[in-house]
């Protein structure tokens, strides 16, 4: 009897040790990735790197300014399209909880959420690149906007669902029309949640490469025209990392560092905003 108990306790101890061990092992890759990016990335970064254009192979002092600007452009284009539609759809879903149409839209959002990003690239290619006969920042923005939408819609809906009904009722009881209640009372209360959603959406798309391969395409030069191809940090990392040139690998580490800081920083800010 006693032995049986010892056996059971031992089994329990062995199990928790295994769990802790496996958890520890799964953090190792994270530490390694962060370590390599920090070690190789920081040494690659200087003023020239941030403000210069890419240099031809063999020349020193190339930078990634076009990729930084391109990434920001793509994020802004995608946000301009996705934020209004996302917030409005989120409002619609939280205001019509039980309607059949809303249920359908909810499933639609879930399906779009699961579409692999490379396929959104094909879609944006067919919708924007083919008719305009040119790769463009706009096409990249469309692909990214579709990726961003579900995140914004979900967090808007969830945020608004948390706001007590009494608030809305109080406003309506004072004779404020419904749309003004939504805009002036409900949205401001849910603002931090909605902003969290937008930031999460930006964090989701800022590091994306696959949908940009055949939409934004990449560009060695600075470009501010949304109807022309632009470079972006992820695209640049892809092309540089798969190139055979030593100097480009160094630049890719630098770009990875910038991208990691940007994306992980966004995630961090999101948490701060959400906590408030």
């Amino acid at each position, binding site marked *: 009897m006693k032995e049986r108990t010892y056996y*059971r*306790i031992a089994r*329990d101890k062995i*199990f*928790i040790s*295994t*769990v*802790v061990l*496996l*958890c520890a092992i*799964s*953090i190792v890759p*994270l530490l*390694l*990735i962060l370590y*390599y*990016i920090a070690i190789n990335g920081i040494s690659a970064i200087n003023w020239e790197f941030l403000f210069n254009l890419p240099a031809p192979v063999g020349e020193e002092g190339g930078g990634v300014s076009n990729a930084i600007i391109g990434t920001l452009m793509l994020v802004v284009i995608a946000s301009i399209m996705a934020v209004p*539609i996302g917030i409005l*759809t989120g409002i*619609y*879903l939280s205001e019509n909880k039980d309607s059949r149409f809303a249920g*359908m*839209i909810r499933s*639609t*959002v*879930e*399906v*779009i959420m*699961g*579409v*692999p*990003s*490379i*396929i959104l*690239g*094909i*879609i944006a290619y*067919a*919708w924007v690149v083919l008719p305009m006969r040119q790769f463009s920042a706009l096409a990249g923005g469309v692909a990214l906007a*579709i990726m961003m*939408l579900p995140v914004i819609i979900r967090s808007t809906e969830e945020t608004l669902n948390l706001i007590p009904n009494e608030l809305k009722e109080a406003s309506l009881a004072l004779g404020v*029309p419904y*749309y003004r209640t939504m805009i002036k009372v409900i949205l401001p209360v849910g603002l931090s949640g909605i902003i969290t959603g937008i930031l999460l959406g930006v*964090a989701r798309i*800022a*590091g994306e*490469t*696959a949908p940009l*391969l055949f939409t934004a395409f990449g560009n060695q030069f600075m470009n501010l025209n949304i109807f022309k191809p632009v470079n972006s940090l*992820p695209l640049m*990392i*892809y092309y540089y990392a798969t190139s055979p040139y030593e100097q480009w*690998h160094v630049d890719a*580490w630098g770009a*990875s560092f910038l*991208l*990691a800081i940007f*994306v*992980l920083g966004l*995630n961090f800010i999101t948490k701060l905003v959400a906590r408030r």
Partner: protein
Amino acid sequence: MTNKEDEKKGSRYERNESIFQWILIVSSIILLLILIGIFVTLPLNSMDSIKEFGLRFVISTDWSPQKELFGALPFIVGTLLTSFIALLFSIPFALSIALFLGEYFTHGIISTILKSAVELLAGIPSIIYGFWGIFVLVPVIRMLQIKLGIAPYGVGIFTSAVILTIMIIPYSASIGREVIQLVPNDYKEAAYSMGATRFEVIRQVILPIARSGVLAGIILSLGRALGETMAVTMLIGNVNKLPDFSVAVPEGFSLFSFHSYVTLFDNILKGFLDGVFSPSNTMASIIANEFTETTTDLQLSSIVEIGLVLFIMTLIINLIGRYIIKKTSVM
């Protein structure tokens, strides 16, 4: 006078009211249109290849732009192999993290650290995983391959599966944690009061209740693995062939010689390792690699058809996962 003004104001409000409602509905409809657009665009742009190859497309192994022959089987196999190996690897880790955060250490500094670490893992862009993989993981795998006595490519199915494992752990782990936390305390306390150890509570109370939710998390992470592009594209080796698992029958094989069986077993093991470590291509990676380099319309439409197949596969996997989650949450 004031009455009239009020009336005017009232009708203006009513008008704005209906405009507002319409805007909400229209934006929802846009979403629906996007999805319908995806459903229509993919088949429309792969019509050539669908007409040309029909069902042969998914069972043919020949992918050669020169001969104008396109079959997607190597990529389907490559996708399934990388994803399922990754899934297999990820399950013990994801389950451990889920139990650690959902049961053993729900609060406190250690759990905050692990939780943040998992969130960071989920936040790192896939291009960085791929880049890191090329320069850190590939040399390690190459060393492993030399030890095992197989061709030291470094890149291949196994390498991609390892990076995919790291990438999908956060998804199944976070869903698993949520489900495990939902298990009612009463059940656990009942088991403890009868003298059960923690392990027994986990195995006989928590996991049976949380089972379908954990499963759903694993299925959803499979959906991610199937569609993952960049990291895999950089690490898979980009070879448009079916992975070769063939086993050489040893020379002079005799049914009655023990030595023959030893050699055969060796060959089976070697064939398996050769297959698992061989360079390949997935559906997502072939699209990423060849989309802008197509020479004929037929090739382009074949690549779009691969996208269609990938879309349908991930759609089915995701729907199954969501269905299970919905059923669980009703409980």
